[in-house]
């Protein structure tokens, strides 16, 4: 039995689907961020396996993942800072309750 590209893409796809489900259904903003990380992670996997299987001589996919991880770190840090700040003001991280900035 061989480990084909296809076999790596399946878990990645399911992970992405889970991320979508979580993003849409969750109300807690931190949980939404977690779902986001799931989606991001699945994309990273795709980049890497495509790079490795199709263009083994190059490293672009890997570098993309590398940068994606860095950016994800930055984004998460900022988002969590914002969430904590919102929590300080609204005593709540439920995305449906934070309506103060709505017109």
């Amino acid at each position: 039995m061989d480990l084909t590209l296809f076999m790596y893409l399946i878990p990645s796809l399911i992970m992405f689907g889970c991320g979508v489900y979580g993003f849409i259904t969750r109300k807690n903003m931190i949980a939404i961020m977690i779902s986001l990380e799931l989606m991001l992670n699945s994309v990273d996997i795709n980049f890497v396996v495509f790079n490795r299987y199709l263009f083994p001589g190059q490293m672009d996919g890997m570098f993309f993942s590398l940068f994606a991880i860095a950016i994800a770190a930055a984004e998460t840090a900022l988002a969590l800072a914002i969430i904590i700040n919102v929590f300080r003001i609204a005593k709540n991280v439920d995305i449906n309750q934070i309506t103060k900035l709505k017109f």
Partner: protein
Amino acid sequence: MESVGNIILYFIVAIAIIVFSVLTVTTRKILRSATYLLFVLFATAIIYFQMDYQFLGAVQIAVYAGGILVLFVFAIMLTQRPGKDADVLASHRRWLGLSAALAGVAVCGFGLFSYSGFAGRLLSGGVDVNMEKIGQFLLSTDKFGYLLPFEAISVLLLACIIGGVVIARRR
């Protein structure tokens, strides 16, 4: 033909990713959600190791599992009462999420199955991605050099640090 150990490892990783991904988004305790995410990230790191990208796997563990997850845990601790369950999902919300997720999976899966020109590729060996090579690429301005994104990321991180400080500062 892969080694049996590799195949077994793959299945363990694949099942872990699938199970923990599902658990991450379905558990009602947010801290558990974060923990399951950690497992998913570890499993992902293992995939990277399998692909011979040791550096990337290390980064995955260090930054994602070590850094981001800790941030999540801090945020959860700051904003949640421990042990509190999230509300049960309203059914329409669940259907909305399920439909979107399944539709996505269906379309992408259909794409994968129907366009399978590359799906059956096997892993070719002999790829050596060592630290020296990565360092050369990151700081090179050649055709495949990544100096500019590297610098951009460094500025982004700086901005992010400042932004984080400004936003989270108590006024």
